[in-house]
């Protein structure tokens, strides 16, 4: 009896692994969208336009990477936008007081993770739903912003201005900012962590089925707290990048950013209930939002409300196509 295999082998279709289909569909659509831009607007084909998308969305990308961790576990983090703003505010106000740049960096990078850690603890130990715990975190961080100052604080520190205005580029004058490099580094580290470390795999397991993960002996609590801490850290890095970007801290900056970030992550193919998705997808998601916005600015004929309607429409077209391609290929 044991000589014949008792199970029926599955026929395996060659080609693209099924789980990569959504990401590839997104990539293809993104390229199509870029193509449309190039064909419509002459200056769109400048390399710098692409670079600008990265320069202008570097901080968004970093924050979205952190959000990817959280969403992969099936959670959500609404506090990111406020934490970004708070980090920028704290940096700006500390720099104004005259603290050295290095120390300010350290302090600023500690605040986000600490808040994330606390929210993670509330979620894990007290079983408060992530949406609520992080909503409270969002109120808190935003409240801290206006508490620190209700006006924007400029940054004049030498290090900050130097990083901010440094242009790394090719001889033809195209350039990226240091923030872009930092964002890329964050993406790579995150991709590595998610694929090659136990922590990363635990994140996927918890998103797949938290109860099973617990019964499989995985450190569910620790991992869950860790992802909110990671998200807090990414928001803090995002906040620093934003403060490089704007050379200031303003209490009302990055309002509603959490929605952009969540949208980017989900457009990138990560499922909101957790357990499936890739950092690379998130990068694509951010680019999709970035390119949509660039298209609209290049057009320059839309008034305020048509801008919104067109953003919604493009988003819809994109998601619909993504979904249809996904179904077809499956």
């Amino acid at each position, binding site marked *: 009896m044991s000589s014949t295999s008792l199970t029926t082998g599955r026929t395996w279709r060659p080609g693209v692994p099924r789980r990569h289909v959504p990401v590839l569909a997104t990539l293809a659509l993104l390229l199509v969208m870029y193509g449309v831009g190039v064909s419509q607007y002459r200056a769109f084909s400048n390399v710098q336009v692409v670079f600008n998308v990265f320069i202008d969305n570097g901080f968004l990308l970093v924050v979205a990477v952190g959000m990817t961790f959280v969403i992969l576990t099936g959670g959500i983090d609404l506090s990111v936008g406020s934490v970004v703003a708070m980090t920028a505010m704290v940096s700006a106000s500390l720099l104004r007081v005259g603290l050295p740049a290095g120390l300010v960096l350290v302090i600023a990078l500690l605040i986000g993770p600490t808040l994330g850690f606390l929210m993670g603890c509330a979620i894990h130990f007290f079983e408060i739903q992530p949406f609520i715990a992080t909503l409270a975190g969002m109120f808190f961080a935003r409240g801290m912003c206006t508490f620190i100052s209700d*006006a924007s604080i400029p940054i004049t520190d030498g290090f900050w201005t130097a990083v901010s205005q440094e242009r790394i580029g090719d001889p033809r004058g195209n350039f990226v900012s240091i923030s872009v490099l930092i964002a890329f580094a964050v993406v790579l580290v995150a991709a590595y962590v998610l694929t090659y470390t136990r922590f990363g795999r635990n994140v996927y397991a918890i998103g797949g089925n938290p109860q099973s993960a617990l019964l499989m002996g995985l450190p569910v609590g620790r991992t869950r707290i860790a992802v909110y801490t990671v998200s807090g850290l990414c928001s803090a890095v995002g906040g620093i990048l934003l403060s490089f970007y704007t050379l200031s801290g303003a209490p009302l900056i990055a309002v509603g950013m959490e929605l952009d970030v969540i949208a980017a992550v989900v457009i990138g193919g990560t499922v909101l209930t957790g357990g499936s998705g890739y950092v690379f997808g998130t990068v694509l998601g951010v680019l999709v939002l970035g390119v949509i916005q660039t298209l609209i600015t290049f057009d320059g004929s839309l008034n305020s409300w048509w801008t919104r309607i067109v953003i919604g429409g493009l988003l819809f077209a994109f998601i619909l196509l993504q979904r249809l391609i996904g179904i077809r290929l499956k």
Partner: protein
Amino acid sequence: GNSDTGDGSAADGTITLGFSQVGAESGWRTANTTSIKEAAAAAGIELKFDDAQQKQENQIKAIRNFIQQKVDVIAFSPVVESGWDTVLKEAKDAGIPVILTDRSVDSADKSLYKSFLGSDFVKEGRLAGEWLVEQTKGASGPVNIVELQGTTGSAPANDRKEGFAKAIAANPNLKIVASQSGDFKRADGKQVMEQFLKANPKIDVLFAHNDDMGLGALEAITAAGKVPGKDITIITIDAVKDGMQALADGKFNFIAECSPLLGPQLMDLAKKVHAGEEVPARIETEETTFTQEQAKEALPNRKY
């Protein structure tokens, strides 16, 4: 369909102006946008309009894209004051002159922009305060003021608050007993005013950072059984149509104007800076204040 929106300065000499608007958060703002669009059309300037939806990030992105498209002049109403140096430097390096409208930036390097065209929020607050000081000169007892602030952290809210506070410091009888944010919205202004009325038995003056909050508060005052404009003196800023109407009807007492109609002035400026002419670094919009009588006169020919 390759629309010729790239390299703006065509041989025919049309000027391309890239304009980044804050958003469309109020009627005032929309009037501002309309004025700019109409003025551009009238002046034969090609306008590239971008709406930043109240986000500084978006404005910076838009300016970058204007630079890519090589527009001739960039103009924008900054969402916040600080944080423009990097992108303005890029514009300067690309040789594109920048004009600020409506709100200023706090760059130390004044060479980053050519001119700032707009109202002075501090002055608006001050005008409102000065009028009140003038009105209450004879009052012997304390005058209780409640203040409806704009969006917490926004420049107009901060400046109008500051200007007003400075002006009323002249009279120690004038006291702000409560001050809350009404977010520049009618509904919030109303809701806050309802609580003010309950918490403070004697309110003499209401100072609202814009007409809309004042209009909301108006309803709350009426509902509380008081007569707006008589029992409570109402001072606001902006002078949009509804506000002027209320003023003419005697429900408001005083409005400091904050004019959104700076389109024509902006187009003039744009032409000048494009031609390389020297322009003043600060141009104030033509603004005035209105009392009830002035409002009745002005109302029929207001554009917004």
